[in-house]
């Protein structure tokens, strides 16, 4: 009895502590609910104070700016609000994000399929490896004018450009993930004669998935960059075009507004990606493998 009493943390006995707790309960909600709310609030504060501070400094430091290339944050936000409400940015953003979505999807499909095949067949991997490393080392943004020059100015080439740039991290991570599949699980699959299709789908793919998802996470910001760059050449729509066009016509606040918006979109997408990752890899996070 004494031993357990010593081990357990001080419980609210029938003394002053318990009455204190009771009064807290009466004040509003249970103690636990309140502490959870406080924790969540603290969490949000912890994650947002720095960005809020950065914007506050930006706002005050740029308030009386006379440099035409550095307009005040107030001007930037006003232009952003104007072009958001009149739909100029809206239509551009939907065009750009469609390209990004299609490009990423293409990159993910090709990257995973190619990575699975290359990861599983050593001979092929050894042949293709130098080519992969050559292409992934080429600066992707530099290829944009060439691809657009070669394939034309429509939406297709922009999507291919994004896909081409985003594919490499997905492909390389998939190969790595496949190579990292636990040897005992491979032995299991062989001994129990799991057919190739099922082996790929239910053994290799899930085992490599944490690595694949990490590759997609790397591909996401690359895709956003290439999305913007692809619209700097031969485009008449999109966020990149908005930025280029405003810059070319000395509408500097608009240029800043466009860049700011791309940043915000990137941030939102990465948040969404974390939610997606937690969902698709719930076994991985819960099992304590990470």
């Amino acid at each position, binding site marked *: 009895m004494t031993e357990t009493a010593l081990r357990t943390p001080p419980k609210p006995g029938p003394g002053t502590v318990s009455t204190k707790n009771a009064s807290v309960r009466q004040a509003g909600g249970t103690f636990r609910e309140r502490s959870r709310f406080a924790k969540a609030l603290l969490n949000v504060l912890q994650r947002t104070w720095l960005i809020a501070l950065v914007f506050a400094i930006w706002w005050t430091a740029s308030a009386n700016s006379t440099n035409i290339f550095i307009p005040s944050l107030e001007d930037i936000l006003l232009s952003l609000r104007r072009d958001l409400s009149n739909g100029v940015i809206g239509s551009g953003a939907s065009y750009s994000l469609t390209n990004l979505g299609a490009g990423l999807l293409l990159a993910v499909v090709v990257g995973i399929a190619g990575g699975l095949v290359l990861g599983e067949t050593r001979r092929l991997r050894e042949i293709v490896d130098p080519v992969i490393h050559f292409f992934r080392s080429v600066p992707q943004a530099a290829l944009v004018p060439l691809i657009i020059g070669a394939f034309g100015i429509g939406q297709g080439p922009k999507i291919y450009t994004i896909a081409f740039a985003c594919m490499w991290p997905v492909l390389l991570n998939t190969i790595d993930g496949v190579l990292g599949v*636990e*040897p*005992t*699980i491979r*032995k*299991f699959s*062989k*001994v*129990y*004669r*799991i*057919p190739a299709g*099922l082996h790929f789908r*239910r*053994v290799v793919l*899930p*085992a490599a*998935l944490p690595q694949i998802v990490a590759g997609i996470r790397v591909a996401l910001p690359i895709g956003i960059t290439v999305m913007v760059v692809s619209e700097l050449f031969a485009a008449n729509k999109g966020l990149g075009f908005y930025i280029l066009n405003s810059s070319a016509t000395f509408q500097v606040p608009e240029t800043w507004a466009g860049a700011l918006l791309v940043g915000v979109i990137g941030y939102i997408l990465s948040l969404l990606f974390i939610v997606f990752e937690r969902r698709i890899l719930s*076994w*991985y996070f*819960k*099992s*304590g*493998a990470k």
Partner: protein
Amino acid sequence: MAVQAAPEQEQVATAPLLQVQGLTMSYGFGDAENKILNNLNLEVNDGEFVSIVGPSGVGKTTLLRVLSGLIRPKSGTVSVGGEAISGPHRDLAVVFQDYSRSLMPWMTTLENVAFPLQGRGVGKKERNEAAAKNLAAVGLGGQGHKYPWEMSGGMQQRVAIARALAYNAKVLLMDEPFASVDAQTRFDLEDLVIDLQSNLGVTIILVTHDIDEALYLADKVIVLAEKPATVVDVIETGFGDHRDQVETKADPRFAEARARILHRLRSH
């Protein structure tokens, strides 16, 4: 008891279920050739529990890999039901030593057990029923929804055993299956395997370095020694179906067999 059991076995043993003849295995070539197994012969009858015991590094794992069809021997044959195998075989299921690595963490235990049946084209309802039945047989009834990482080591190894049973192979190969669990869990799992074997009549080949475990579980203990490894002794234990961790191990025949195996291993 032992005297009665022996002639019965001889009657059944018209043809051994699993037969290894002249098995030789080595890694490398020429001067670098490292011979692991040398002209190894053994027979396992239908329904028999056979332990293969030998010191660490003698080549037990290599033998098991050959038996499970994962590697091909340099020479010699492994046949199941009279038919020589050339790779993983329908009638051979393996329980791996490391349960934490042989179960797939992205599947529930039920899915893990049912998965090999899916590979064989068994329908979803049927394979899930088989999986649930075999999970119940190893004492994990109603726990199919859990993930392996939500279970203790002993429970995970039970899942691995259920998976091998559900595969419905004639021969179960077990590679040091209890080496990674604590002593008490180990006794529980040993008794579970004995029960399963006598209830289901499955043939089991268990590889271990532990002489007591080999003797306690098996009808027949095959002793591997020498370098390259070969069979140096075969002992019929004759303890019958009923075994008890205390009684059986206190049996004078147990001590005698133990001494004999130790002697065999020392003299080589």
